[in-house]
């Protein structure tokens, strides 16, 4: 939900002074609707013109909020609303319980850092983070058994627990590691880890840091922090930053953990199926967008480009691009294509750039190149003067200009081109692949000048090679392409 206006906050306060202070801090950032009772807030919610981005609670006694009907209602009916609790002092037990009942998403102690609160709310307003999928309660799928990884620097306790858990069930394997570093090695080897429960205090990397990293590198692994120490600040950071699933206090109880791990496995399956669904939807929808984009590019370029050379060059060029593999389509690419002027601007700007380049190109075919020296000279000129000139270009000059642009985009030097004399002329080939991280038919989040320049250079390479009666061969790879040109020698 990209908000056009300011994000809205539903504020539930007990003390009027707290409300005033909160409004002083955030009135310029958010529209705040304040209520002194749960009922007032509950009455407001169904009638609200826009669903608030966040509910912020400023309780006198944070414990009372375990029974809050407002929080329960938000959890059950408005899963996208971010629930933030700000208390004078938060007890660890309370935090653990709130997390168990999924009543709050973020938790802070006074005095708060307004930057951080603002960032959490703005981020929630901008992203679809709150988007939830119904839990996947289907039985474990076919395939290898999922694994729970327990990370703790006391191997005896872990070993005892693992054996107990193994005896109690047949749904998951139990793995262990004695440090965060070892856990990372386990994760590299075993791709079926679904849940990680880590101790906080360990030599080397701490549990919280490990979970922070997992959140980025393995977003579908469910994260649980455990500790014998009641460090509430660590627990709060783990909730706010690490987005942990649960905080498990020590000592462990096998029966309790079994039920926790079962819940965590359901959560894992939900995350995996949500990810797979969003991936396949993105790919499917982008395939359609790609077709449309291709059709529009052809429509806008056909006449100008193919008219110039008398051959169906545009289609050849687009076919060559399609062989260059880029990163798979993701939701933000779709969003950029649909919610911004990207698709329109892409075709317009590209056609415009190609049109300008064609207008400086000497029309008519020139059969072949004079000799290798002529090519070398033209290439040296193009590399020295990368901006190009507005004067009329011969096909050879245009060809070298295009090569120079493509090499610059790949960070390559002149030596990366291999020139071979053949019986009928000259072979020009790229010794190492040319980088192409994105292209006209790839998922794009943003239109940039280097992209347009690189793409039009490749098209101009097709055009100028044909004008010289040569052949061009492009083979795509992973984010790169190999080029080879054959330029016939001039007959005279």
């Amino acid at each position: 939900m990209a908000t056009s206006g300011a994000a809205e906050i539903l504020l539930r306060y007990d003390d009027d002074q707290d409300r005033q202070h909160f409004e002083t801090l955030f009135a310029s950032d958010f529209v705040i609707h304040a209520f002194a009772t749960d009922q007032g807030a509950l009455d407001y919610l169904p009638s609200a013109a826009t669903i608030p981005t966040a509910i912020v609670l400023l309780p006198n006694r944070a414990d009372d909020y375990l029974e809050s009907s407002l929080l329960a209602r938000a959890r059950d009916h408005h899963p996208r609303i971010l629930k933030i609790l700000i208390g004078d002092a938060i007890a660890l037990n309370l935090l653990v319980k709130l997390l168990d009942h999924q009543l709050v998403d973020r938790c802070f102690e006074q005095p708060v850092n307004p930057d951080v609160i603002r960032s959490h709310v703005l981020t929630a307003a901008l992203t679809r983070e709150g988007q939830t999928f119904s839990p996947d309660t289907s039985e474990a799928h076919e395939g290898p058994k999922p694994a729970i990884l327990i990370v703790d620097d006391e191997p005896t306790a872990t070993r005892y627990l693992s054996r107990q858990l193994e005896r109690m069930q047949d749904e998951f394997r139990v793995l262990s590691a004695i440090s965060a570093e070892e856990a990372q090695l386990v994760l590299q080897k075993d791709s079926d880890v679904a849940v990680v429960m880590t101790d906080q205090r360990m030599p080397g990397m701490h549990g919280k840091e490990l979970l922070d990293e997992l959140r980025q590198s393995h977003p579908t692994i469910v994260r649980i922090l455990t500790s014998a120490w009641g460090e509430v600040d660590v627990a709060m950071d783990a909730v706010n930053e690490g987005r942990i699933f649960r905080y498990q206090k020590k000592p462990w109880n096998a029966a309790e953990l079994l039920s926790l791990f079962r819940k965590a496995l359901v959560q894992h399956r939900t995350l995996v199926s949500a990810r797979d669904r969003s991936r396949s939807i993105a790919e499917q929808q982008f395939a359609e967008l790609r077709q449309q984009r291709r059709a529009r590019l052809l429509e806008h370029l056909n006449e100008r480009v193919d008219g110039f050379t008398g051959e169906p060059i545009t289609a050849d060029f687009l076919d060559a691009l399609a062989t260059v593999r880029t990163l798979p389509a993701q939701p933000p690419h779709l969003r950029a294509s649909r919610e911004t002027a990207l698709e329109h601007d892409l075709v317009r700007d590209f056609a415009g750039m190609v049109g300008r380049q064609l207008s400086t190109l000497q029309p008519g075919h020139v059969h072949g190149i004079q000799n290798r020296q002529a090519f070398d000279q033209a290439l040296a000129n193009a590399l020295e003067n990368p901006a190009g000139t507005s004067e009329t270009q011969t096909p050879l000059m245009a060809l070298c200009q295009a090569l120079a642009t493509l090499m610059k985009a790949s960070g390559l030097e002149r030596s990366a081109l291999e020139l071979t004399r053949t019986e009928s002329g000259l072979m020009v080939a790229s010794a190492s692949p040319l980088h192409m991280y994105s292209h006209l038919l790839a998922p794009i989040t943003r239109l940039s000048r280097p992209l347009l320049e690189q793409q039009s250079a490749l098209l101009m390479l097709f055009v100028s090679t044909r004008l010289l009666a040569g052949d061009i061969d492009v083979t795509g790879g992973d984010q790169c392409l190999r080029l080879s040109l054959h330029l016939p020698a001039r007959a005279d």
Partner: protein
Amino acid sequence: MSSIESPSAGQGRLMASGQRRLRLYVTMGQRLLRDSLLFQILLHDEVELVGESETGVATLNRLKRATPSVLLIEENLQDNDGLTIAEHALAVNPSLSVLLISDTPVSSGRMAIYLEAGIKAVVSKDQPVQELIKTLFYIRNGQVYVGNWQQEPAPAAMLAYQALSGREREVAQLMASRLPVRDIAGRLGVSCKTVHSYKDRIFVKLGFERLPELILFMQRHQHGAAE
């Protein structure tokens, strides 16, 4: 605004709990801008510069060996689109925190797309350097940070300056003329310790952490360059 926790204060707490250093990689086309920025950023001793490049291709080539935790990259690079390069860097190393520097402020629609693409924060070239440094620390553990990027920042330092006492202003002016503490003490007829405590109070009140910030603020103010 006394409840604002400065990034470096939060820093101290995080460092104590076994915090990793901030391993920074910087990709900016222009040397002059890159140097100016790095002079500021490297004043913070938790930051370690592990690599820098002018181009996107060079960044992707070197990134794996440099193992940075934060990549600071310009949106507009000479050879490739900075955002495309950032997306590829994230595909290789998903735990990298990317801070994108845009030429102009981005719209909320665009910001949403960037965040969804895995960018942790965007700072525009219109914003003060302090905002960039603050953001750098907020995103170091993989957090997203969104400041109130579309609003004009309140002239907080200016208001705070007006609230300084006469003596504090006098000390601020002398410090901004780069006079050593001992000379300031001599000139005002007080002890060095007193000057130091004035100095601390001035920094806290104005929200500055380092002398260069005070010098820049005072000189801008005195010569009327700041509105």
